[in-house]
């Protein structure tokens, strides 16, 4: 009976999760399941140089819109306000309705959006953006540099209560002061003229421009925002789609924006079903045009004799890494050899293949494949049970018998911890002779304890990129002073490398600094990196053209079209 229940529950839960996270990403939690997280915002080379002026899209071609409606499942977004967006459900919609100075294209390169170009001066600290001609809000009103300034001021206003302003905008001079309520205006944002905006940052950080691709830096219309708290129900924005209808819990409908300055969308409408349902059933019943494919359905869909196989689209994985973390201050993980032993005792290849159906790729480093700075030849700590036992014996505890009680905490609601975790526990038992206990805590409690560094060992977490720069992984996770360093890892050499990398202008040197830091972190076994999400599988109807699976959340619906024979 258990298998048949799991057989039904798993596809329901997995499919809903995969669809909701599908093709998008950006939030950094996983709920203790082994589902691959969705893709995360794209990667480009750090330290991007100023782009050449964008060529205007030929009007004639963009007018030849194909029309039609693309229907898919989604979930109720917590918000449509770009300045409050911190999760993938909201971000996936927000990037289609709103836009900002720069964007990421479907190949995850930084492209000019509202800004047609920018110059970097002042040793790398001053960005001068030149706005495109003819950018309009959806009601036809022209967008000026003052609107961008208003938007930046608004997101940094403490009354806006933006949860992400600190992370994305605090490099701007005066931003922190405004957030703390010390000043009324952000010194580092200056309107030069109607089409020129100057932004000054506190140090020549090359990753700044990548951060501006995130919704926190998007433009909003002052009149619209000031019309009242319900303004997100009728946003007047600058993106390729307008919000046509939003019935919470039921549906959200986007409509083509005729004024979009970078090529009008081909689709007439996009219909998001918010009320739920079983994705595969709905897809096969032609109620939706697109669905993610969960582990339970994979065999059927991969079978070349199954008609669904023709509608299968495979995509690159999102940029995330799943891991088990150690608290380096709590015994026995205060001894590096113990941490290394635990890492060496896990046969990741077998688990990835047999337990997770190769939906994941074993990870030996921190940065995922395809992400800037990823080191494909990192040696890492590979499976070696003999060495693992030896290291444990060499540690200050002398062997498995003298170890204190070890508890690994994972998020969960009291059900199974997942077969992959169970196998890992079994491997530790067999290869090291250590019995590790697992404790499941529900998410909010888990988060609270995690932030206060109360765990000895913690799992069930994944980390995804929000912007395409290794700083988002290495610095935020492993710098000793970072508050996201949940294991209290401290290595002064790593700190030094990370601090140098923050301001290194030469992108090759910068990458090398991050890779050196990564090498040290891996050897120190601060974490056990487990896996990167593997290839993603989705089903999409054959009449939908131009849909790309992206590794981060980027606007992409405007290039999708429907071609019925």
């Amino acid at each position, binding site marked *: 009976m258990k298998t048949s*229940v799991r057989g039904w529950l798993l596809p329901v839960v997995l499919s809903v999760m995969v669809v909701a996270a599908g093709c998008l990403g950006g939030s950094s939690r996983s709920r203790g399941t082994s589902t691959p997280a969705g893709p995360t915002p794209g990667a480009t080379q750090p330290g991007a140089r100023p782009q050449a002026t964008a060529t205007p899209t030929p009007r004639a071609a963009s007018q030849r819109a194909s029309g039609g409606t693309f229907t898919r499942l989604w979930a109720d977004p917590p918000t449509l306000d770009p300045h409050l967006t*911190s999760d993938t459900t909201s971000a996936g919609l927000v990037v289609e309705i709103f836009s900002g100075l720069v964007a990421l294209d479907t190949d995850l390169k930084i492209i000019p959006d509202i800004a047609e170009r920018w110059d970097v001066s002042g040793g790398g600290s001053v960005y001068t953006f030149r706005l495109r001609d003819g950018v309009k809000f959806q009601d036809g009103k022209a967008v000026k540099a003052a609107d961008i300034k208003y938007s930046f001021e608004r997101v940094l206003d403490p009354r806006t209560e933006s949860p992400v302003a600190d992370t994305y905008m605090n490099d701007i001079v005066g931003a922190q002061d405004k957030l703390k309520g010390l000043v009324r205006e952000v010194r580092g944002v200056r309107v030069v003229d109607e089409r020129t905006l100057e932004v000054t940052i506190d140090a020549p950080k090359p990753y700044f421009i990548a951060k501006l691709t995130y919704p926190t830096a998007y433009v909003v219309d002052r009149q619209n925002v000031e019309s009242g708290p*319900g303004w997100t129900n009728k946003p007047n924005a600058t993106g390729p789609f307008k919000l046509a209808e939003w019935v*919470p819990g039921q549906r959200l409908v986007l409509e083509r924006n005729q004024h979009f300055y970078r090529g009008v969308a081909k689709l007439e409408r996009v219909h998001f079903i918010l009320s*739920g349902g*079983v994705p595969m059933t709905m897809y096969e019943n032609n109620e939706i045009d697109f669905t993610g494919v969960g582990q339970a359905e994979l065999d059927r869909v991969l079978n070349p004799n199954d008609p669904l196989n023709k509608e299968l689209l495979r995509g690159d994985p999102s940029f995330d890494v799943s891991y088990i973390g150690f608290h380096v201050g709590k015994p026995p993980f205060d001894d590096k050899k113990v941490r290394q032993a635990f890492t060496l005792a896990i046969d990741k290849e077998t688990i990835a293949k047999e337990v997770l159906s190769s939906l994941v790729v074993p990870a030996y480093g921190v940065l995922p494949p395809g992400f800037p700075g990823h080191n494909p030849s990192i040696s890492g700590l590979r499976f070696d049970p003999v060495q693992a036992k030896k290291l444990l014996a060499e540690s200050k505890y002398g062997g498995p018998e003298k170890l204190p009680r070890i508890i690994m905490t994972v998020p969960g609601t009291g059900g199974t911890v997942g077969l992959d975790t169970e196998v890992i526990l079994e491997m530790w038992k067999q290869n090291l002779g250590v019995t590790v206990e697992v404790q499941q805590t529900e998410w909010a409690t888990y*988060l*609270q304890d995690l932030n206060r560094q109360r765990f000895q060992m913690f799992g069930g977490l994944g980390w995804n990129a929000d912007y395409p720069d290794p700083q988002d992984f290495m610095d*935020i996770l492993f710098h000793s002073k970072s508050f996201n360093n949940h294991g209290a890892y401290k290595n002064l050499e790593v700190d030094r490398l990370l601090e140098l990398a923050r301001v290194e202008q030469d992108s090759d040197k910068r990458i090398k600094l991050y890779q050196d830091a990564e090498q040290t972190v891996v050897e120190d076994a601060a974490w056990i990196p487990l896996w990167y999400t593997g290839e993603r599988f989705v089903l999409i109807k054959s009449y939908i053209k131009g849909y790309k699976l992206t590794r981060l959340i980027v606007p992409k619906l405007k290039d999708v079209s429907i071609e019925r024979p």
Partner: protein
Amino acid sequence: MTAYVVRRLLWLPVLLVIVIFITFVLGTYGPGDPVEVRLGTKANPEAVARLRTQMGLDRPFVVQFADYVGGVVRGDFGDSYRYQGRTVLELILPRMWVSAQLNLAALLLVVAIGIPLGMAAARFQGRWLDPAIVTGIVFISSLPVLITGPLFLLVFVVLLKLVPSAGWGGLFDTRIIIPAVAIAVPGLALIVRVMRTSTLEVLSQDYVRTAYAKGLTPGIISRRHVARNAFLPVLTMLGFSVAGLIGGTIIGETIFGIPGIGRLAFESIFNRDYPVIMGITIIGAATFVLANLLIDVAYTFLDPRIRY
């Protein structure tokens, strides 16, 4: 009787304040913080502190409590923490209405199927049909929505293609049929068994024997004497069901794509969306009290022996 009703109603505000207090205490002093949940693992302690102050979460407990109760009295249940800019009422009321409709449909099914079956089982007591009905119903009822839901989907949607698999069209839309049946099924067993026991008890009463002796037809006896009296215990149970009408079944809602209150309630707990949790709790408690009052009043019409 008016005095009785008024007295019962006067307890309502007292009860609600107690409910609010308990939930408030659990929320304030329990583990987990709504701001931390919103910010996730990338939380910045400065941002967390700043947001908590903006949201008024660092005010003393008494201040927050008084503020909240004052708001509720004015009909203001506050804004959701998770769904920015949306008031609690606009989030939960439409969903409660949907759940109420769905559960009403399920309730009608349970009554329409369960009561006659229970009476039939009692009538055929001693013959094979009685245990057959009871065993059959108990078995079918033991199947949770998790099993029956996908099963129905498979048969009626995928194989027979009778209705779309998901979505909500209101009480009179065909899409309500399968979810209503799936949700009604687990409730059948209890109704059938209680009705059966109750009917058996009534059948052994003197006045029923007298009715037969008088020469009344079994049909009339059944309707005029047995059914009404046997129904009373079932009514009590249905009272609880009515009170639970606005409750949602998460699994049913997820499988059939119904925008009901179940999923929102479940998610709100995980997200520590306290205003929504409080709103659902308060309205739930109030509905429970009112529904029970209604049932108790209904008794006076059904059973002349009961007077308040």
